[in-house]
């Protein structure tokens, strides 16, 4: 018996990261800004995007890639608010989107007519934090029905995100949710997080969010 060792020392995410780098370069060349929306299920990502598309799609040219384990319900909802392609990725069981899926989805999007790409990731506060999709930034969305300690329970997601949306603030009068504590918890794991407080249902706080989206879509590399 002759046992020998094959030395590898390769990062498991290396292949995904290589593809993500190619996606990032492709989007940069096309002048498209990509934002990766990550959250737990039910935080209001799709509602926030519905509002965003209704307000800004004609002005900006927004494409959306949605990821769901089953169904393309989110894509169907968003399609009502835009004539632009909303591409649904049904992961068939996987708990996150990966850069290979985004690479394939980009082939179905008219990048020339697009300035902003939203990637609505699978609702999951764990796995999507580890997968680079070639986005400019991750935006973590959570809601006032989820508890102030979400950032402490799922720190990696908040560490990997540059922006945070605290949604469903219209429900605050009915809850014991402490907004200041939630923001303090988030900033304890990521001091640089920029916050948006929104209600996708009533529209409260959306003006600032929409201003941010406009700014994010400003032409850069085209």
């Amino acid at each position: 018996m002759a046992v020998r060792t094959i030395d590898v020392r390769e990062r498991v995410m290396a292949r995904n990261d290589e593809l993500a780098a190619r996606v990032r370069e492709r989007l940069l060349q096309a002048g498209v800004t990509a934002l990766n929306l990550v959250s737990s299920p039910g935080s209001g990502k799709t509602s926030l995007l519905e509002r965003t598309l209704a307000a800004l799609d004609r002005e900006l040219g927004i494409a959306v890639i949605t990821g769901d384990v089953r169904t393309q319900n989110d894509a169907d909802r968003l399609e009502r608010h835009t004539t632009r392609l909303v591409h649904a990725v049904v992961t068939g069981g996987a708990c996150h989107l990966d850069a290979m899926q985004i690479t394939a989805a980009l082939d179905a999007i008219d990048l020339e007519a697009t300035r902003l790409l939203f990637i609505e990731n699978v609702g999951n506060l764990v796995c999507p934090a580890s997968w680079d999709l070639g986005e400019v930034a991750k935006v973590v969305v959570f809601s006032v029905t989820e508890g102030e300690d979400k950032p402490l329970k799922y720190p990696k997601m908040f560490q990997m995100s540059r922006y945070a949306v605290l949604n469903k603030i219209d429900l605050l009068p009915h809850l014991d949710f402490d907004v200041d504590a939630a923001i303090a918890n988030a900033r304890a794991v990521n001091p640089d997080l920029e916050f948006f407080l929104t209600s996708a249902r009533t529209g409260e706080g959306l003006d600032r969010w929409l201003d941010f989206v406009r700014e994010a879509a400003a032409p850069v590399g085209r």
Partner: protein
Amino acid sequence: MHELSLALEVCRMARDRLPGDNPVRVVSVGVEVGRSAGIEVANFRFCLESLLQEPPFTGARTDLVELDGGDLRLAYIEVDDGR
């Protein structure tokens, strides 16, 4: 589910590194898991051990080492080529 997808990727990488010209018995697969990699180690070990029961690894040992940092790496593969 996250751990299973990562374990599948480890197996894909390991399979790619096996010599194609000469059948070998895989003795062990060594993986380094960063403590801030967002991986539940016991669950990951279970997934990888289960996958390593299948060919071409059939019965290979799972060697996991926890390290500081956020990376997950396939560190090495031990093979017995019968020579």
